[in-house]
Every structure is written in C-alpha cells, then in structure tokens.
C-alpha cells in the first residue's frame, strides 16, 4: 500500500508519449502564433518547453506557475469552485496564459501582440483536451522503457559529494 502510494506520486513520462506531447505543442505554438509554451507538472517540475524561450528561466517559471495555480485554487474554494481551469496575466508587451491539463499538468503559454488572448484560449482548449487524453492513456499502459541503471542513486550521491566538497 505504502509503495503503491509512492508510485502514484511519481510522474512518469515515457518516451513515446513524450514525443507525441512535443509534437502537439509544436503544432499549438504554430497555430496560436504564441512565442512559446511550457508544460508544467502541478508540482512545479517542467515537463518540456517549445517555441522560442531562451530568455526565460524555465525552472523558476515552472515553480511559480505551479505555485500561482495552487494559490488560486484557494481563491476558487472561497467562491465555491473546486479550481479555476484558466488563468491569464496581461503585461505591457508579453502576456501569459495558463490552463489546466487533466488533473496533473499546466500549460503556460507566453505570447505577445502577434496574437490575441482569444486565439490562445481557443487553441489551448483544443490542446489541453488532446494532452489530457494522452495522459489518460499513458496512465494505463505498460511500456518497456529502460529502467534506471543499477547504482543510479549512489552515483547521484557521489555527484553531490563532488559538488559540495567542504
């Protein structure tokens, strides 16, 4: 039981699903004319990013997006909703559009004046539906991905030791 729970909390993305996800995101960036898109776990881990995004610190953005989403969940609760599925932050030049994908991820789209929030909203709805489906199927299937190599954990510990030599 304990182990099952642990496994459930582990978000695993297999290679073939991942390829499919990236393909969908690429199409989405093209269709919506957005600058870039980030797919982020609800726990704040970045899954992947597509489009032109060199200037962003993706890890921090992911942590903040997940945090912001969780915070608005509290807001939703006060209004009697379970959660808000879409959030939008407008800037002077760049904007960010956040939408929930199934119950495990968030799709964060950064866009500028080349497109509109309406377009982004429209295409992101399609995208999230498709992504949610992939997640749903992925959760059920078994694949033969190579497992962690033996001694992986110990190697990471060695690396940490190297990094923090006192």
């Amino acid at each position, binding site marked *: 039981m*304990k*182990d099952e*729970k*642990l*496994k459930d*909390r*582990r*978000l*695993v*993305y*297999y*290679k*073939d*699903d*991942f*390829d499919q*996800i*990236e393909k969908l995101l690429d199409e989405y960036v093209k269709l919506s004319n957005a600058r870039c898109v980030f797919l982020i*776990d*609800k*726990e*704040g*881990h*970045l*899954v*992947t990013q597509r489009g032109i995004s060199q200037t962003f*610190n993706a*890890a*921090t953005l992911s*942590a*903040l997006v997940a*945090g912001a989403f*969780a*915070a608005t*969940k*509290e807001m939703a609760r006060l209004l009697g909703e379970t959660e808000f599925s879409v959030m939008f932050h407008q800037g002077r030049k760049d904007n960010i559009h956040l939408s929930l994908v199934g119950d495990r991820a968030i799709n964060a789209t950064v866009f500028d004046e080349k497109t509109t929030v309406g377009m982004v909203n429209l295409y992101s709805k399609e995208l999230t539906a498709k992504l949610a489906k992939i997640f749903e199927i992925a959760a059920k*299937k*078994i*694949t*033969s*991905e*190579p*497992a*962690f*190599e*033996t*001694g*992986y*954990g*110990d*190697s*990471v*510990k060695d*690396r*940490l*030791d190297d*990094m*923090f030599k*006192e």
Partner: protein
Amino acid sequence: MQINYGKREVSCKLVYYGPGMSGKTTNLEVVHQRVPEKSKGDLTSIATEGDRTLFFDFLPIDLGQVRGMTTKFQLYTVPGQIYYASTRKLVLQGADGVIFVADSQAEKIKENIESLTDLQQNLDEYGLKLEEMPFVIQWNKRDLPNALPIEELEKQINTFRAPTVPAVAATGEGVLATLKLAASLVLDRLNTKEPGAATKKAAAPAEKPAEAPPAEKKEAVVAKINADQISRSYFTQYCQVQYRLGARTEEVDDFKKFSMDEKKRLLESLINHGLLLQDAKKRSIVVSKEELEVQLKEFARRFKTKEEMDAHLAHRKLSLDNLRNEATKNVIIGKIIQKVIPNLNEKFRITETEVKEYYFTNSAKYGGKSFDAVKAEVIAGIKNQRKRELLDEMFKALRRESSITIFEENL
C-alpha cells in the same frame, strides 16, 4: 518527483519546513553560494517588505547527467509564520523529502512543536505520513547561548527518531550535510522502489557485485542505433541479465566476464532489441498488461509453486522486472512479425514430405528412433527453424532502414 524518459531527466523536490525565523531561507542562501555556477539556477524569493518569506523561496540545482539521466533537485522553503498555512500546504504538494529546520533556542521550543504538528496535518491532507517520508531534522542556531542541549531537543521534538544534523546556518555549518542527508534518503527510495530497477534486494543478497564496474566520469557509448545511444553501463547490465536468463546451471556467477567475441554477439542482440523497440514505437505497438501476464504465466508454469519460482529467480539473481522486459520483447516480436510478414500462418504450414525430409537429413539427432516416435519433435524443430529464419529476415529488414554505429573500443 518527475521521471521523464523523453528528456531522460529526473527531478526531485525537497522542502525546507520549520517555524518562522528558524533559518530556512538562510539554508537556501548558503546552498546557493556553495553550488558551482554552472549547476545552479537563480535563488528566487518572494519576500514581503520585512524580508520574510511570503510565498516560497526556490532554488533549482542541476547535477548534470548521472548514468544517462539528467538529475535535478528543486529546493523550496515554506513561509514560517502561522498565518501562511495555506501557502505552506501548497508548497508541500509533491514533496519527495522534507527538511525540518528547528530553532534550538529554549524559548522557541513551543513554536517548533507547533510547526511540526502543522507539517503533519498538511501531509495528512495529501494522504502522507511524515514517518514514511524521507525526513531530516536540522538543529539550527547551535551557536546561540540559549540553545537547548541536543538531547533535550531530541526528547521533545524528534519523536520519530528521524536523522538529525546540528547546524549554524548563518555561518554555513551543517547546511550542506543536511541537504546531502535528505537527498540521499530520497535517492535510496529511488534505488529500491523504482518499478524498473532491481527490486529483489532481500532475495538476492549478492546483488551488489553484479553492478557495472565503476563507470568513468563520462559515459562511454558502445553503439548508436539511429538517434538512440547504448551506454556501456547499460550494455554491461544487459549482458549480465542475458547470461542469467540463459544460464544452464542453477547457481550463477556474481559477475560474469565475457570475451570480446561474446560481447560482440551480445551487442548485436541488444541492437536487435533496440531496433525492435524503435520499430514498435513507429508502428504504435503497445503491450498490454494482459498480454504480459500471459507470457509471465507461461514462464510460471515451469514451476510447481510460487516459492519454487521465487527460489529459482533468487538463484539466478533475476528480478521479476528482468522477466517482464523479456516478456515485453517477445510480445513485441510476435506483433511485428505479424505486421511485417504477410500470410504468416502459411509459412508455418508444414507438409508430411517436409517433415520426412527433415527427419532424414537430421536423423543423427534423433538417435535411430522411428519416424512416428519423433514426429512431433520434428515438427517443433522445423517450426523453430522457420521462426529463426523469419526473425533473421525481419532484423535484416530493420537494419537496412537504420543507421547503426558500433564503438568496439568502448566494449
């Protein structure tokens, strides 16, 4: 935790918890100073005017590639003040490990206990138990004159007997030791609980020596199949598993050494395996749980009881996952053959003349037994031969479409 096979990346989340002003943010600042430039991201802090954490502090650390997986740790702190309860809860979401930064000062004992209770409550809402999680307590501010003796703190706060580290975060003392300890607890989970990794520690005590020889700093690649690479340590592991699967003796060596020719032969079979998986992906072939079960049951039929099978696996130092991988491979082979080779059944239709012919050409093998006595055996022999031919044909076809490079010097 996120395990991303697409990017070959593992990302773990560690959360620093504790009462207000106990030194959580200071811990993160020290880590940030000590991590080499190339491995760290920015330390992000959402602080109020009074310099107290409002939302959370966040520091990503990138350990780079470890055994083929890019490994990242994300460090979070929660705001300590009581009134940020909901923020604390959301930061805890998905935490792989918790570091509790306790304030050692005598007058803070109550706040420590309150914060710890708060932590338990919040974990409880996610259906988690502190005693089941990777959890470390840091006794911070050991340098202050009013710090309680550690025995006293242990008695009052550490009711779980969690591992602890004394620290003076302000000078950096004990900070890295705490982080390393928490990280290794998280990693130990990964070693033992990852579904694909060796899970039979208890049954196979001699597992350790079977590991790959100490890996070089940079992973050597033994072969490339199209875009995929086979690392040397993966290859070594594959060889050991294949040896154990096919061993004719009941007991197996801890670490079997292979000659160059054997290695080359094994690499060829691993390349075939890789080609299969790539092809299966292209054809969107998925192996269902049921199909896998059928294969595993087939294997289990060779044994009278489950205990007998477990004992066999333990002797061979094999895990159920090794079997599962083999079974998956077999199912995929079956499915691809059906797709690639039309009128498959026809190829397995065997005429009486063929059987006779085979019997006479291989008569030595049957040691003078009469045709009727060995007919079934003969048919099975022909089928096996056909199967081998079909497999050969299939792999040849796959190889024609792929680019394969072998780095013999790395074998």
